[in-house]
């Protein structure tokens, strides 16, 4: 098992290399020209050419790639082409913010999803099950553009309970409590979809597990409902929970762009969006490599946990 983990981590290197190559050439082949953007609208062709030279964009693509690669190891990814400032200063803080939102989202999605799924599963077919499932189904299919605004409008403008967006109260001291307060609405909004999926998976797993012969065995021994639910059903539905949780972490990292926009969350999503639009490949590269690393690590953890959770898989397969 330990060897497998190391192997997977070692895999990361070629994987990231492939990603960086792909990303580089896709952003090169893409429609955009990193220098031709809003600014260039207002520049003459000679001026544009000058900037192009300044960033070495007149060189052949493979040279540009090598330059980027060198920059990656020497000065944190080089200089952004569209923002003209060091990539590390752009990408890292944004990524950190996205991670914060991602973590909060995951916590909300998993906590509520598991709770709802569990309750629904136990009360399978009853009113509370139907009501809860309907509720999460509705919640997770509310278009975020619409729902997010309504949330902001109600909680921030009408009732003044929550801040209208951002990460910190710019007037306050920016403490942890403040961050939490700012996290509530975006994390909740971003978690809805995953919450539904987790809830449905957990529900299905609970139903299946609750009807199984081994749960019948526990029941025959007079174990209380709480013990059976908490320990045994709980343990046997862990794999789907872990699996969907791993996926949730992933999906929130790449999927919160729109939530970030609406809640003015200074995350990686909008940075990447802008960079992609402007073919700012140094930023795209670094951003995607960070995301990819996170994914691989999260997926690795998920896989290992899944194997550990399944006694039959612990030895790495039969």
């Amino acid at each position, binding site marked *: 098992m330990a060897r497998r983990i190391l192997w997977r981590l070692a895999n990361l290197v070629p994987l990231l290399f492939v990603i960086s190559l792909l990303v580089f050439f896709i952003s090169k082949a893409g429609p955009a020209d990193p220098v*031709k953007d809003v600014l260039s609208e207002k520049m003459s062709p000679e001026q544009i050419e000058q900037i192009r030279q300044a960033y070495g964009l007149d060189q052949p693509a493979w040279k540009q790639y090598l330059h980027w690669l060198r920059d990656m190891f020497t000065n944190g990814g080089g200089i952004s082409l569209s923002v003209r400032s*060091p990539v590390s200063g752009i990408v890292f803080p944004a990524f950190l913010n996205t991670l914060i939102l991602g973590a909060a989202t995951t916590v909300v999605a998993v906590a509520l999803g598991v709770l709802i799924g569990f309750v629904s599963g136990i009360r399978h077919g009853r009113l509370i099950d139907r009501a809860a499932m309907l509720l999460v189904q509705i919640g997770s299919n509310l278009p975020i553009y619409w729902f997010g605004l309504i949330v902001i409008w109600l909680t921030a403008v009408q009732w003044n309970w929550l801040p209208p967006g*951002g990460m910190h109260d710019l007037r306050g001291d920016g403490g942890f409590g403040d961050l939490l307060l700012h996290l509530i609405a975006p994390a909740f909004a971003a978690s809805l979809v995953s919450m539904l999926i987790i809830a449905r998976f957990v529900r299905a797993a609970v139903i299946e597990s609750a009807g199984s012969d081994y749960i019948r065995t526990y029941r025959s021994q007079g174990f209380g409902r709480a013990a059976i639910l908490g320990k045994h059903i709980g343990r046997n539905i862990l794999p789907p929970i872990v699996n969907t949780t791993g996926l949730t972490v992933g999906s929130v990292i790449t999927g919160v762009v729109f939530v970030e926009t609406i809640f003015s969350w200074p995350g990686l999503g909008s940075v990447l969006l802008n960079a992609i639009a402007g073919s700012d490949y140094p930023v795209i590269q670094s951003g995607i490599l960070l995301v990819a690393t996170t994914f691989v690590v999260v997926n690795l953890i998920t896989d290992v946990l899944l194997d550990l959770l399944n006694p039959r898989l612990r030895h790495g397969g039969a």
Partner: protein
Amino acid sequence: ADSKPRDGGTLIVGQYQEVTQFDPNRQYSWETWRIDRNIYETLVNEDLSSPTGVPKIVPGLATSWTVSPDATTYTFKLRQGVKFTDGTPFDAQAVQFNVRRFTDPTFQYYDKVSAATMGLVYADLASFKVIDDYTVEYVFKHPFLDYLRQIPNSGNAASGIFSPAALQKYGQDGLADHPVGTGPFKFQERVRGDHTTLVRNPDYWGARPRLDKVIFKPIGDDQSRVAALRSGAVDLISRVPPDSVATLEKAGFSVPENKNVPQIIYYNFNYTNQYLQDKRVRQAIIHAVDRKTLAEKIYKGYAGPATSIINQGNEAYDASAVDYQFDPEAAKKLIADAGYQPGEVKFTILSDTTGQPTAEFIQQQLKAVGIDASVESFEWITYGTRSANLKPTDGINLGEWGYIAPNWVKIAHNYSVVNRGGDKYSDTSAATNSAIEAAAHNPDPAKSKELWQAAAQAWAKDATIFPLISFNRYYAVSPRVGGFVWPQQDHYDLSQIWVAS
């Protein structure tokens, strides 16, 4: 807004875009300059304290200046005793360092990117001289009447003076994140995507700024920005969505009106499109669109129609100039004359999402005269790249710009026509170009306005640009804020603004 002026406090500004960078020679975008101009100062300033009238040019880092009669030589007496916020002195050497950075390829700190950006103003600079420690001289190849106006200009190519020491310390790319100037506020921090904080410069040479701190926060989503203002999270926002004006006013926010701001929304023609190479089609397009209805109905009167490329608020603005009347019949006829059946002319209208209502409106109006246009609209950034990389099927694409200085006509013509290869498709391009040159190189202030208007009229003949509207509501201000003035300029002065406690 009517509370007494007060010292101290923090003002939070909600901007509609993430700012670019705080390097005066590389920065672009209005929102960036709205921050930058508090950090960096220019040799001359505009007096932004009045909501009406073209702002007067007033001393800035220069206390006085002389302009040669042929308007080629500008000599500035620099203000003495001014220090950059890093403690280094401001003097002629510092100015020279600044100028050489973007004009002198032999200079150790020459920067191509800056040169490209600043070329807009300094392309014709013949020489720069340090006369003495506090006197500098700029000599241009041609008469350049509008130079003083250009110095504190917004958008790109503003001439803010940075500390040479800072550039040496942080490098060409580092200045943007460590901006050092002489302005009323100094840079404290920028958290990308989240906010930029400026604090009062205690050693400021001019009137002491009232605010302790100004924070700028980008909120890209229109509705979120309005919500932030309404919830009190920010005190001032730019680019109020027209639909929110009435509700904001009802809720006690002030949404000042200014019909003379140098801002214009226009469409460029794409000359690689086969239909638009015919001037009759272009003229038909302008004839087909009812700009008055667009301004009054779709924008609810929060915009005014623009019928000349000389934007309102420009020194050479002429309200009576109309390029083409709204006349669908004339449009149909022109298209028929050009040899096209209804529905035969087809192209794409490119727009950013905020301009989408306009684009859809135009689309409907074009349809009425037999032009089949489709709309593609993109987020602002995507739009920027898309519109810089036009395809032959693209027809017209949205632009937003404008200046007080009348040489805007030349700038606009360069970018909308000359650089796009439009001269080939206009029968009158020679006349237009010479009219523009005549106006640009004219040393006589009295004749300037007249010449520029003539140039604009010459340009309008073959319909190579399509002016549309100008906004007259732009900012919304919380009642906590006092002293906010929206002058006839696309930025504002923060140094005398105060916030209620």
